[in-house]
């Protein structure tokens, strides 16, 4: 806790650096009231936020020039905290980047920030530091004409020791160089400074201050909880710059909700640096920390010492929680209990500011969103967030995995780079190690190169700090010191889950069961068509969605701009149901340690991946409510294993119910109910499973049930519900169809054919109807698939480059086929046995009733089913295989029935005419 005086100093009006006389006087008055403290025995701070002199240095020549020698005043000005983008400094970008949001003003070079600062004469004898909470990458300080300090951490604050270079009572011209160029040859995609997400900004963020402290002070305060005996071990580094032997005491105060205790110990410091270790018993009122009980405590050490020359006071505080993390057989253990991590990957996506927030409010918002979506975990992919993120995760009970800015070939031999990582790792552990939310540490993402170096980092980190679990690299070579493993595969097989299946009798348990807990890496990644409405959200951002403008213009040129909102909603709905399937598969995997969805929010780089249920601003896209999402992603979830989604009505539905319970407690006498409703909401069947107590920290089978579908005489969508004690509910849609034995019967009026031959042409010429169902292998065009594209079609240009389907569900062709505007699992056997027709050259007004959504960097019209006039005749084309394995394709059979009823009814009256060359264009010769 800051002292009363510190608070006053921090809140100086106007946040000016000038140490106003009025405040000094006030502070001195306070000090007079505290006769034990002398004016020289307090930490003092000067807030340096506000206006600074400024100059760009795109030629990187100020250091090499003679300017510093003349102590020139910089000519421009800037407000800190802030970044150059805020002031439109840099290259005004005329381009429209396709693969990312476009930065409006690009700047990558040294930039110089300057202020004349009077060092208070009271600071004589103190240690004087200049502190920047977050900057990147290299900060260097000139005091007057001389460069005196350089720091190049990425993940932690820069704290420059200026003691030897400033004179109390003197005004110095302080010039700060911030160089955001890559200081080492590291991967350009790492999220600490990539242009793909947060931009590679130049500036200083968070607290910017000059700090004066007594020469005997606590440099480092680390708290190691021991939950068994309710104690903490405090490990302090005490520095002594007095060159004298010092004695005194350290007084520890531990504060928390309904908790306060003080312990005082004698201290003697006979060297320039000593380590003090003290075990403090906290008593039985201390509470453990975990996701359900995020009890946070604050410890302050007040160090009061003296020598014959004077007395010294320093205070250092830390936040901690009573929690231990251990490596379980398959799970991470928090306080000896297995947890299952339900998380998302955080990639420093902050387009509103262009940098990761350093304030509590924005991080609190994110933590609350995670909780709202049933999550308890956040992986920081190739970066480490600022302190505010840890504070808010401590407060709300979120488990963090943090990483260094390390990716790809960063482990290839390069001693300079290696040394940077060695420093950075230690910096992260020291700065954030006390936070209970800091549960997992991994060096970086998908690393290649020298794994002896990765093992060295991991092993050293383990030796340094036992308050976290450590892992060498995500999704690459294992190392001996791994305590957990985030990967898409183990040596027992794949643990990734990118997409669902039309049944739920599967999991990734066996493959996850190796020597360390395994977390499924970057699950999901299902692409949604961009929502062009988001363009306007960037008005006040340092970046703009100019890529969206390009995509939108292309869609307009291709005559489908009016369909943009439908493409967004239909592909979005598909992603929602894929994520339900993905997450439930990983919850069914009792030997999986958890998953990291990629991602709850969009990723605006690497080609632009709109895979999120939230946009890049962490605002909902309106595709699913958090309440609905929590049915599949929460501490306790009802799960159901069943064999398929589409049934004939002479079959029986059978389900094996399970309860995933990683909630705070076991569920005594759980009442487990199942029931089945139709689309009107009417309950058709129901039952209770045997009442039982459900344990915790595992996935529990709770019984099975079945029901006969013979009462369902017409095609129907049914919903199977499962509940545990009313509060926990989940549901799954299934589709039931009659056998539909007689399909595709031609009549005099209607000809079914798989060939566009003379007979078909003749039929059309007679003004009659032709239903053309060409075999997929005879159709040019693209492979048909159920799933929407993985990640995004720009980065992974894998065929067929489609992102779901838009179904014209109010079209009479679907009168007998129950479907939404988007595809759902009943479409599985249709879409996996079809071929996508490229229809860009069809008349503009021709819109397929089964329309496939093209990749947004191509935006061509695609379809599987459409109707058209051909001369006087009427044509319906359905590029679906109507021969293969039809006995097991109930939905396709039903679709054919619906088509049949339609074409044989008076409603079949195509409006748009096509010419024969178009028909020939998509058929193999």
């Amino acid at each position, binding site marked *: 806790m800051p002292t009363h005086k510190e608070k006053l100093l921090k809140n100086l009006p106007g946040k000016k650096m000038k140490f106003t006389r009025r405040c000094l006087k006030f502070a001195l008055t306070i000090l007079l009231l505290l006769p034990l403290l002398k004016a020289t025995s307090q930490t003092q701070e000067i807030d340096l936020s506000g206006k600074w002199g400024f100059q760009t240095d795109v030629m990187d020549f100020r250091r090499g020039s003679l300017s510093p020698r003349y102590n020139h005043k910089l000519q421009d000005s800037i407000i800190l905290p802030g970044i150059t983008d805020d002031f439109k400094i840099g290259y005004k970008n005329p381009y429209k980047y396709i693969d990312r949001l476009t930065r409006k003003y690009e700047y990558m070079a040294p930039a110089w920030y300057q202020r004349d600062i009077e060092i208070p004469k009271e600071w004589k004898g103190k240690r004087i530091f200049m502190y920047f909470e977050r900057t990147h990458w290299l900060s260097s300080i000139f005091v007057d004409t001389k460069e005196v300090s350089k720091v190049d951490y990425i993940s932690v604050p820069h704290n420059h020791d200026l003691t030897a270079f400033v004179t109390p009572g003197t005004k110095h011209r302080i010039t700060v160089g911030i160089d955001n160029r890559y200081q080492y040859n590291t991967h350009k995609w790492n999220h600490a400074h990539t242009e793909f997400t947060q931009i590679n900004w130049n500036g200083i963020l968070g607290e910017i201050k000059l700090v004066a402290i007594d020469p005997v002070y606590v440099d480092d305060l680390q708290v190691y909880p021991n939950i068994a005996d309710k104690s903490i071990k405090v490990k302090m580094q005490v520095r002594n710059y007095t060159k004298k032997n010092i004695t005194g005491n350290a007084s520890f105060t531990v504060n928390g909700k309904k908790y306060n205790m003080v312990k005082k110990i004698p201290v003697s410091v006979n060297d320039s640096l000593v380590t003090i270790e003290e075990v403090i018993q906290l008593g039985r009122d201390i509470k453990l920390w975990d996701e359900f009980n995020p009890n946070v405590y604050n410890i302050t050490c007040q160090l009061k010492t003296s020598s014959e020359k004077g007395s010294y006071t320093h205070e250092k505080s830390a936040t901690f929680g009573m929690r231990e993390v251990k490596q379980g057989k398959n799970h991470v253990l928090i306080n000896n209990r297995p947890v299952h991590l339900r998380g998302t990957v955080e990639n420093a996506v902050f387009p509103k500011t262009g940098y990761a927030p350093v304030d509590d409010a924005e991080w609190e918002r994110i933590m609350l969103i995670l909780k709202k979506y049933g999550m308890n975990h956040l992986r920081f992919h190739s970066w480490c967030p600022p302190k505010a993120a840890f504070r808010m995760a401590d407060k709300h009970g979120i488990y963090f995995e943090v990483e260094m800015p390390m990716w790809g070939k960063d482990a290839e031999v390069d001693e300079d780079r290696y040394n940077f990582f060695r420093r950075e790792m230690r910096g992260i552990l020291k700065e954030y190690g006390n936070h209970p939310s800091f549960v997992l540490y991994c060096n970086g993402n998908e690393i290649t190169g020298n794994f002896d170096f990765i093992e060295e980092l991991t092993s050293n980190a383990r030796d340094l700090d036992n308050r976290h679990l450590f892992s060498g690299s995500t999704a690459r070579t*294992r190392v001996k010191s791994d305590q957990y493993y985030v990967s898409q595969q183990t040596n027992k097989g794949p643990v990734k889950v990118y997409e669902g299946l039309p049944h739920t009798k599967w999991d990734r348990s066996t493959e996850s069961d190796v020597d360390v807990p395994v977390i499924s890496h970057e699950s999901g990644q299902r692409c949604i068509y961009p929502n062009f409405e988001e363009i306007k959200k960037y008005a006040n951002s340092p970046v703009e969605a100019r890529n969206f403008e390009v995509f939108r213009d292309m869609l307009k040129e291709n005559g489908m701009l009016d369909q943009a909102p439908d493409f967004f909603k239909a592909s979005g709905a598909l992603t929602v149901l894929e994520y339900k399937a993905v997450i439930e598969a990983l919850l069914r995997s009792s030997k999986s340690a958890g998953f990291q969805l990629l991602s709850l929010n969009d990723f605006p780089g690497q080609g632009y991946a709109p895979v999120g249920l939230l946009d890049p601003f962490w605002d909902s896209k309106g595709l699913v409510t958090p309440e609905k999402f929590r049915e599949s992603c929460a501490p306790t979830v009802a799960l159901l294993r069943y064999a398929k989604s589409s049934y004939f009505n002479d079959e029986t539905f059978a389900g094996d119910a399970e309860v995933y319970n990683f909630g705070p407690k076991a569920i005594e006498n759980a009442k487990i109910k199942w029931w089945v409703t139709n689309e009107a909401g009417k309950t058709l069947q129901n039952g209770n499973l045997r009442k039982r107590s459900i344990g915790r920290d595992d996935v529990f089978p709770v019984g099975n049930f079945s029901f006969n579908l013979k009462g369902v005489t017409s095609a129907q969508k049914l919903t199977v519900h499962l509940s545990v004690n009313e509060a926990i509910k989940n549901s799954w849609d299934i589709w039931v169809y009659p056998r539909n034995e007689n399909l595709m019967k031609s009549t005099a009026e209607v000809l079914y054919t798989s060939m566009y031959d003379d007979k078909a042409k003749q039929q059309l010429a007679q003004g009659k109807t032709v239903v053309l169902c060409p075999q997929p292998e005879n159709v040019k065009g693209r492979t048909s698939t159920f799933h929407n594209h993985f990640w995004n079609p720009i980065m992974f240009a894998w065929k067929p480059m489609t992102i779901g389907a838009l179904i014209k569900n109010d079209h009479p062709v679907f009168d007998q086929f129950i479907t939404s505007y988007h595809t759902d699992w009943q479409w599985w056997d249709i879409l996996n046995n079809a071929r996508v027709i490229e229809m860009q050259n069809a008349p503009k007004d021709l819109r397929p009733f089964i329309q496939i959504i093209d990749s947004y960097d191509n935006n061509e019209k695609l379809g599987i089913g459409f109707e058209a006039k051909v001369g006087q005749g009427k044509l319906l084309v359905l590029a679906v295989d109507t021969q293969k394995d039809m006995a097991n394709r109930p939905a396709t059979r039903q679709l054919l029935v619906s088509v049949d009823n339609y074409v044989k009814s008076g409603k079949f009256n195509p409006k748009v005419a096509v010419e024969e060359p178009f028909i020939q264009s998509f058929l193999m010769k």
Partner: protein
Amino acid sequence: MRRRIFLMTGLVFSCIFIYAQQIKMSATAGLDQIYGSTVISENLLPFNEIDVEFGYVLYEAQISVESEDAVLELENVRDFAAVYVDTIVQGSITNDERKITLNTAQGKHLLRIYVENIGRITYGPEILDNSKGLFGRVTVDGEEVVGWKITPLKVRDLQIEDLKFHSKKSNALPGFHKGFFNVSDVKDTYLNMAGWGMGEVWINGQYIGSYWEKEKLQSIQVVADILRKDKNEIVIFELKNNSQNTVGFADEPVFN
């Protein structure tokens, strides 16, 4: 490699004897039993064009070797390949090391390249080219090799009981190796694959995992559930053929 196994065995001295035993491979089965349908092509085709997404494919072609120390060079290897001339192993190659000197007599020979695709490229300059397997040019001393027989190997969904084993190995080509071992105390353990090249393992017909000598992790966890008291069967699919003929268990994971 042998030495390491004995060292590991020493380390686990305290464990029950059966876990320290070296299991001797006593029978082999040829890969021809798991051939998929062969595609004939003048030029190389990547996996993608023969509808193989992951797994193993055998590329075969006639070559004419006209010099001693002839050099085989491949333009793209995704991701690992074991090279054989006739039935003699020449070594393994990856995309980082795409050249190999052939140790073979002058004359006509059958070049066999067994390729495994490990995964997709997720970053880097090759990201837009996600072809898998072999593609581009293959040359022997600069002469392009053409006329390929490309055969998918159905390893992953294999029913082990369908394989026909013979007690004697007829050649050094990649194949399946079978052995038996006894367990008196059934418990979770680790199979130590150190010494083996690259492949996959089944115990009692159940798939237990894969291994690769280039990985640091050299063991595969074996859960007690799949072990039987007394007689158990192990089958190893080995791609590279390091002439390893035994395998053992360890109490702890084994790392290089």
